[in-house]
């Protein structure tokens, strides 16, 4: 409540992060700002302590020769001291460049030299060693400052200093320049460059996205207002600091709203720490929510009979009415409301407690599509989880799902201040106060992405549905056209298929063809389990892949996807007409998947050209010989005769009413 009483900072006055920090220190100095679990205990710093720490460090940087405009790299796990280093650099008019902490030395070399970094603040010996390895190639790098001195006692390089030493230096400097810090902070302006975030570079050379203070602050403000966040939130900072998501959620929003950010003890203890902390607002990519759910399900299978049946009974209740109650729907019957209330006491409450979600008011997820079952599971338990859509270039937020209007397959409506339009190619363009300034030292890249009047292309294809919700279907460059004229978005279809627990991978074809056809890989565990229950004997993946029973199991999944697609006016033409089950699992070792497990559609089409041809001919079977790489690196071939099955196509439905 403190937040409401004492008033929000006036963002036209407090228009940079250092100014916001000083504002919080002055107005609500005793309110917790950062926490870190260290030696098994949560240590807390309040806003006025943070301001002092940042001030001492900034003055120390000045004493080391930090000038306005200098770049300061940050490498390490989420630690309060590293966040403070960002504030300190910004206080001096410098620019923090957070970097991925698990990058190898070679990858760091590119960012360090491209950004012409002069100072680096790193977490520990591991990062120091990496930087020492490449220091001779980074001509501009003058100082390395480390936070954790363990193992570094015998390092004698003159350019190595500890965080504490720099602060000590700063406290000395303060006696001779008492007003320097405040003056320096006051010189900062909203339009100044606040941070350079390098994209991870999975698609070519990584680009340095330059964001101004106003970009990050206005984007954060938009999201805070949209979801009514207050200064009393608690969040857990555990995603890489170099990623824009962490920068906005754990840094930008915290400084605008003044809420508390907690750093886990180590990257291995995140789930423990989550439980202990019980955040009120949580951001995670879909796979984290998925893992949590899987753990719950596995442990429920081991529980006693009474508990298990209670769990299943009340989960059915939650599935029926939980999401509707969360959305404030008036049509839920009284008996369901009573049952749900009972379930909250007996099942949902304890379950949320185990997950660390007891106090959670809001959860965001983004990055990739989240399975509708997982999404509904959390919503039915009363966790207000929402999908958002954003990008580094937008300072994250483009759209958020609005309360009470959540749809599984859209990413919501534009955040206030964001304008959307669709290019002729179907690509989504946006214009917003969060839109980035430019790519660092890459005018060509900037021109290709951002027009002079501020429209930024996202590279994603999508459309607005009848309620104005944005639906993202695929990367724009992957979207094709069927010969019949319909739009073909392979990933959208593949994701829909993969949401079935039985289907592990799917590869859809259709660009420049008459209809959509696909390869499927089933999940050997799920289907294996199913086969055991049905008393179906099998020897392995290979064997299961030719069983007609398995075909009919997967045909049901395809059928459901087709029904779904038929309902969608934009995509009804891309129903799957023919499919086959591949005789081997797609594998990164064979080059069929990327290391991050994305299917390489083009490569697969070339490798299994006969199968693709067969999909588009009338054949019901096809012989194939494929090379496989075994775990130990040996190569072998697998021969198979693969059946191809037709699926039912549905007429596009007319919208009722």
């Amino acid at each position, binding site marked *: 409540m403190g937040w409401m009483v004492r008033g929000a900072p006036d963002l036209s006055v407090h228009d940079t992060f250092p100014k916001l920090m000083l504002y919080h220190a002055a107005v609500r100095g005793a309110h917790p700002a950062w926490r870190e679990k260290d*030696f098994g205990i949560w240590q807390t710093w309040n806003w006025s302590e943070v301001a002092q720490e940042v001030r001492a460090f900034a003055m120390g940087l000045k004493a080391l020769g930090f000038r306005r405009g200098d770049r300061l790299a940050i490498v390490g796990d989420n630690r309060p001291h590293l966040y403070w280093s960002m504030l300190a650099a910004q206080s001096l008019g410098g620019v923090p460049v957070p970097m991925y902490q698990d990058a190898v030395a070679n990858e760091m070399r590119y960012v360090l030299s491209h950004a012409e970094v002069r100072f680096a603040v790193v977490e520990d010996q591991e990062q120091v060693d990496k930087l020492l390895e490449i220091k001779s190639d980074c001509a501009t790098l003058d100082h390395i400052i480390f936070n954790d001195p363990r193992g570094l006692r015998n390092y004698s390089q003159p350019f190595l200093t500890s965080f504490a030493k720099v602060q000590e230096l700063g406290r000395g400097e303060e006696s001779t320049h008492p007003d320097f810090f405040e003056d320096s902070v006051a010189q900062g302006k909203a339009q100044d460059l606040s941070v350079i975030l390098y994209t991870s570079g999975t698609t070519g050379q990584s680009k340095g996205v330059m964001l101004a203070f106003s970009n990050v602050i206005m984007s954060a403000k938009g999201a805070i207002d949209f979801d009514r966040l207050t200064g009393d939130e608690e969040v857990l900072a555990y995603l890489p600091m170099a990623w824009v998501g962490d920068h906005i959620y754990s840094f930008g929003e915290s400084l605008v709203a003044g809420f508390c950010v907690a750093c886990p003890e180590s990257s*291995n203890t995140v789930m423990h720490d989550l439980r202990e902390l019980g955040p009120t607002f949580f951001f995670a990519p879909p796979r984290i929510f998925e893992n949590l759910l899987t753990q719950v399900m596995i442990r429920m299978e081991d529980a006693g009979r009474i508990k298990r049946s209670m769990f299943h009974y009340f989960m059915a209740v939650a599935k029926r009415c939980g999401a509707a109650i969360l959305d404030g729907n008036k049509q839920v019957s009284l008996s369901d409301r009573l049952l749900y209330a009972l379930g909250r006491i007996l099942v949902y409450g304890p379950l949320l407690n185990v997950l660390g979600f007891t106090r959670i008011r809001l959860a965001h997820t983004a990055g990739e599509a989240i399975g509708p079952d997982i999404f509904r599971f959390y919503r039915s338990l009363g966790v207000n989880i929402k999908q958002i859509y954003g990008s580094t270039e937008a300072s994250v937020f483009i759209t958020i799902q609005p309360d009470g209007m959540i749809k599984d397959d859209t990413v919501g409506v534009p955040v206030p201040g964001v304008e959307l339009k669709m290019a002729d190619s179907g690509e989504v363009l946006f214009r917003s106060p969060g839109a980035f300034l430019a790519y660092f030292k890459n005018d060509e890249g900037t021109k290709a992405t951002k027009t002079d009047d501020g429209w930024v292309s996202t590279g994603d294809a999508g459309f607005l549905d009848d309620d104005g919700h944005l639906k993202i279907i695929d990367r724009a460059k992957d979207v094709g056209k069927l010969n019949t004229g319909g739009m073909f978005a392979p990933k959208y279809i593949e994701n829909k298929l993969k949401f079935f627990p039985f289907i592990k991978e799917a590869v859809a074809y259709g660009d420049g063809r008459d209809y959509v056809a696909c390869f499927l890989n089933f999940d050997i565990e799920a289907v294996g389990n199913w086969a055991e229950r049905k008393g179906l004997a099998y020897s392995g993946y290979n064997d299961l892949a030719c069983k007609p029973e398995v075909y009919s199991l997967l045909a049901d999944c395809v059928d459901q996807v087709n029904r779904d697609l038929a309902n969608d006016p934009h995509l009804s033409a891309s129903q799957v007409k023919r499919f086959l089950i591949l005789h081997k699992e797609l594998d990164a070792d064979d080059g069929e998947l990327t290391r991050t497990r994305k299917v390489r559609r083009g490569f697969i089409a070339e490798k299994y050209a006969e199968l693709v041809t067969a999909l588009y001919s009338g054949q019901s079977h096809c012989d194939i010989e494929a090379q496989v790489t075994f775990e130990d690196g040996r190569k072998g071939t697998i021969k198979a005769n693969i059946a191809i099955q037709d699926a039912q196509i549905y007429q596009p439905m007319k919208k009722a009413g």
Partner: protein
Amino acid sequence: MSVSEKQIGDVILRCDNISLSFGGVRALTNISIDVREHEILAIIGPNGAGKSSMLNVINGVYHPQEGSVTYQGQTRRAMKPHETARHGIARTFQNIALFKGMSVLDNIMTGRYTKMKRNFLWQALYVGPNLKEEIEHREVCERVIDFLQIENIRKTPVGRLPYGLQKRVELGRALAAEPQLLLLDEPMAGMNVEEKEDMCRFILDVNDEFGTTIVLIEHDMGVVMDISDRVAVLDYGKKIADGSPAEVRANQDVIDAYLGVAH
């Protein structure tokens, strides 16, 4: 920073002419070994050479028939293990000797046993001066946990952990005693390459960070040559070489002992 830059001090433990036999079996014959402050001394040798017996003599499990052990200026022949523990010698075992049902934290806490001032009746009470003491001990344990990077398994029962981690917990328990001399009996046996690398790092860090003197028995020659300051070689209960890793590697007796020569 290399190991050679560190300061190796005076002899802190001297074994003079140790002989140990079990009935007719002579396990150790007339062995003299010095251990200097801050060094890492490896004892190597083929199976049955008497390496573990030597460690057991040092920390008082076995009492040699002849010879003496001088530690911290005191010469003795027989000393009980708990006395040596109180005097700052901690060890780990070849086959893990942890309490499987207890959590990692509790296991490490047992390493503080010799430092606890009050008896168990007092300890049952979580009040007053005992609470203060408990907090102090817990803090030491938390530093060890942080040092060994096992925060994520702090509350996990040891029996549920994989072998490599159990070894690390055992090292943690030894470290909790804040030893001056640490005896490690095959700390890397049965580990995979990555676990071995981690363990080497920890051993070097313990030595560097706390200045702990370490005596270790190890079969992996790569490890021994990499991390030791000095290597002593036993064969059939006799010491056949003692020197820097390079010297030992070039020693003909050692080569014979390992490759096998008729005795």
